[in-house]
């Protein structure tokens, strides 16, 4: 094949350019740590990576929703536990009142203690979460759910649930419905008070104590449900953590450069480039001109 001077130099130029481009490409990957810097670098991988990233961001939101639900369920559980303490106290007082040795003055003293317990329970039933919403008001979270009118407790809330999204199409009830438990509890204490004032010790031991016991077991059943939910939350959270970690790993596999092999490729590209440079340097010095006197 005939080699023209232009052929010789344009070949040098073309080869230099390719060697240079390879070197720049691999340096880009090494310095950014990513093999996908634009969608066209790997369209399929890129599509997978963005799907996984959005899945991961969604999971992070579910985890955040779980944390919020955990917070309000935790507050509700604490409140229920305090109610239970109050009711235990009421139980002791009722047992005391049921004994026939008490005189009416002592019974009246118990009545005022029960009244205090009642107002404590109303306070607890009106507990607000960190954002000021009422925990036991159903969906009417901005209305104080319990008010006392005369001797009756009035419920101003509703019995609708508040749900948190904890997965695609999956929700978890994050509020605790206090009705009819709280009203029943209040009314039981009201009856107890009446029986104490009337010195009706028989009714106390026959009916009131049993009612208080039944309220206590309702509270503890509700707390059991809350505890089960909190357990679900904790296991889902750690499950999501694992999923999210796996996604991070998979995204990294698609997007990130394998540093070891990139470093080797860089070595190769850089050698190819320097070889191309030295060919240009030496090839172009050869000319017939050097031999013509």
């Amino acid at each position: 094949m005939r080699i023209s001077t232009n052929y010789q130099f344009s070949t040098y130029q073309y080869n230099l350019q390719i060697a240079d481009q390879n070197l720049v490409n691999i340096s880009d990957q090494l310095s950014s740590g990513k093999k996908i810097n634009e969608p066209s670098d790997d369209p399929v991988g890129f599509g997978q990576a963005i799907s996984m990233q959005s899945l991961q961001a969604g999971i992070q939101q579910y985890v955040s929703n779980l944390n919020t639900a955990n917070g309000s369920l935790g507050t509700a559980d604490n409140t229920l536990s305090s109610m239970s303490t109050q009711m235990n106290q009421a139980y002791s007082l009722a047992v005391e009142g049921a004994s026939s040795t008490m005189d009416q003055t002592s019974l009246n003293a118990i009545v005022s203690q029960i009244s205090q317990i009642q107002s404590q329970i109303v306070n607890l039933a009106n507990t607000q979460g960190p954002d000021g919403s009422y925990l036991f008001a159903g969906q009417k979270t901005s209305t104080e759910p319990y008010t006392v009118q005369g001797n009756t407790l009035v419920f101003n809330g509703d019995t609708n649930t508040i749900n948190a999204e904890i997965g695609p199409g999956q929700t978890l009830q994050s509020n605790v419905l206090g009705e009819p438990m709280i009203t029943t509890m209040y009314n039981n204490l009201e009856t107890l008070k009446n029986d104490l004032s009337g010195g009706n010790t028989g009714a106390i031991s026959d009916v009131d104590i049993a009612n208080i016991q039944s309220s206590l077991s309702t509270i503890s059943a509700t707390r059991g449900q809350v505890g089960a939910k909190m357990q679900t939350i904790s296991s889902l959270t750690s499950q999501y953590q694992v999923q999210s970690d796996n996604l991070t790993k998979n995204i990294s596999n698609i997007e990130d450069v394998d540093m070891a092999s990139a470093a080797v490729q860089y070595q190769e590209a850089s050698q190819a480039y320097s070889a191309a440079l030295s060919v240009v340097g030496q090839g172009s010095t050869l000319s017939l001109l050097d031999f013509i006197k």
Partner: protein
Amino acid sequence: MPGLFQGISTMNTALSAFQTALDVTGNNITNVNTVGYSRQVVQLNPMPSTLDNNHFVGDGVNLVSINRIQDQFLFAQQIQAASEDGRLSSLTSGLNNVQSLTNATSGASIGDNLTAFFNAWSALGSSPSDPALLQQVQQAGETLASSVQGMYSGLQQQATSTTSDISSTIQQAQGIVNTIAQLNQQIQAATVSGSEPNELLDERDQAVQQLSELMPVKVQPMQDGTVMLFSGQMTLVDQSGAATIPTTYDASTGSLTSGNQTYPMPSGQLGGLFQTSQKISSYQSQLDTLANTLRTQFNSIESTGINGLGQTGQNFFQDVPAGQPQTGAVDFQVDPAIVANPQAIATGVSGNPGDGGLALSMSNLRSTQIASLAGQTFGDFYSSFVSGIGQDAATAQSQSTTSAAVMQQIGQQISSVSGVSLDQELTNMLQYQRSYQAAAKALSVFDETTNDLINIIQ
């Protein structure tokens, strides 16, 4: 019997031929770097012999012509490859620009904003009356809408600049066509007068090659040295001169149009620009689909609720009344009432502050397969949209790399045939120089012989 000065006149033909050959060599060396220059060689023939005492003796050398060395077959390949290369390089640069509009790796892409928007609804679901979360939904909605609208308007700008590139390319092509027609005339005049217009031929080849980068070109050489040029069914140059290239076109079919004639431009930069413009409108229509589907899906849920201001029927994204054609991505935005006050966002149908049912339904759209998105979820639709753009760009890039390599290869073959080799020219130079010296020496011998003869007469 030949005359006394026969030898001298024979040597004269040699001196003049070798002088011209040296000039041609010098001219080749001068043009070693000239783009499109074809090396020239002298064609030497022996002079017819004359009868000398029963013997025929040659009368010297005749420089018949100065030819340029060129391969028509390679040239035809080159202009075809140039058209393909022109198409791919303009398509690649167009698609690369589009690709950078996706903001794909910046963390601020439509996809990222879509995820953030769903997350905001998801968070709002369990605390529907939290003002901070309402504001978050409002802002995530605005960011999403503005990124969809922003990409659309970026594509629009790209389309506008493609349109102006198409016009200037047609103009440029017309200029080259005019030049070729002029060169045709000059070449014809020179050929008729019997000379070899090598430089003009090189110049015309260059012009044809430049034209072939802009549009597909077919060359038909004529007897008188002129060429006719065609692009598909359209005549560009014929014996009557340059034709006028239509400046009207239909980008969607990739054709120039004149009256009811259409001339498809499948290659050349013009072809690449038409294809870029087709791609851009397909991307724009996908964004329209995305925007309209977001409107329909979110509004149909949102408008059933009662918002914090006690209103019902409020849209989340601004939309035309039902039954009218939706407006697409160009004016995609959150409804002004919600922009003005996040309390206008409805989270439930009951109006209770704790009712987050609708917020959860909207968050649930994240994983809903939607018919108008070809049965995909919003996220999948976006992901296939962007990887489609990436795929288009990657295909164009790799084809463009191949076509550049093909161009390089053909260029080298042409260079191998037509290019000047300094070593060869220097060798030729030495050869002609020595030949000239020998002829001059012979001339001086003839001179002495003649001199001797004349001296005898004295």
